[in-house]
């Protein structure tokens, strides 16, 4: 019984540590990567994985079902919302033409797609062209 608690504590600590490291790597990417879109992907993927590892570690250390449920809720909403945020950032970046240093190799979105999904507000200029 007691050994199991110690094992769970140990694994929990390792998960907490690795989650923190993964989140840190995401932040370093956020600072060092060159443009909006790569930075945005650095801000979402490692952060989500970091949250996942952190909550798993916390769950192993708390070991109560109600807390595990709450943590599962945290993970659920994290998984659901961070792609949406990343998508909005990417969409704005594309519409304002901030898609990296050089011109785009190709842009399938250049002419179409906007009227069907956007529909709101005035049309921006032909952004992100090659």
């Amino acid at each position: 019984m007691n050994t199991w608690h110690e094992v769970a504590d140990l694994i929990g600590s390792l998960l907490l540590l690795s989650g923190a490291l993964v989140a840190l790597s995401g932040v370093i990417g956020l600072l060092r990567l060159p443009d909006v879109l790569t930075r945005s992907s650095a801000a979402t993927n490692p952060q989500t994985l970091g949250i996942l590892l952190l909550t798993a570690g916390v769950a192993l250390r708390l070991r109560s079902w109600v807390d595990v449920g709450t943590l599962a809720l945290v993970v659920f909403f994290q998984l659901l919302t961070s792609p949406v945020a990343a998508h909005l950032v990417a969409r704005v970046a594309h519409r304002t033409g901030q898609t990296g240093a050089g011109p785009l190799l190709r842009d399938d979105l250049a002419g179409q797609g906007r009227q069907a999904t956007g529909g709101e507000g005035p049309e921006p200029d032909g952004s992100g062209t090659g």
Partner: protein
Amino acid sequence: MTPPAPKVPRGRRLDVPLIAWLTVIWMLLWSGPTWGNLVSGVLVSVVLCLVFPLPAVELALRLRPIGILRLAGYLLYDMVASSITVTLRSLGGTRRPRPAAVIAVPLRCRTDLMIAATAVSVSCVPGGALVEVNGATATLFLHVSDADAPGKVERTRRDVWRLEALAVRAFGTRAEIDRIGADPAREEPGRDRGE
């Protein structure tokens, strides 16, 4: 969490699964399943559903445990892989930036829910960022970095299709799964129209 009753529109009427789900969240947020939490949760959920009615959404949702497990496993693997990619790239010093591209990926599924599920899953693909979703034509637009690398665009497109198949096999209806069985390459001739 939702029984197969896709034809019921969500208007100003009580949606029992939604209320149950909101109540569960309420109880978790108030730290535990007590009777007081249950009663207040049901009250709050009913009031919320009456005051803020949701638009009618065709809920063509099925929960398939094996498919969900496979999707979760693949997403976890993808997330680890993309985290490693991002870490290596950010630690690897500033390289000369390679040209990126925005590519259109036509999907095979047609329901809004499946398109959304695929779009959310796609955010985990390494090196790809979702720029736009066109629900009418079921097309995703992805920003691909390093697009001049040979086969990179094709590989990204195949990744998206694989994620789509996994997502539909986890949550889709029978009709959508049948659609997934089709060859994605059949859309190939139309894809270069934005050239």
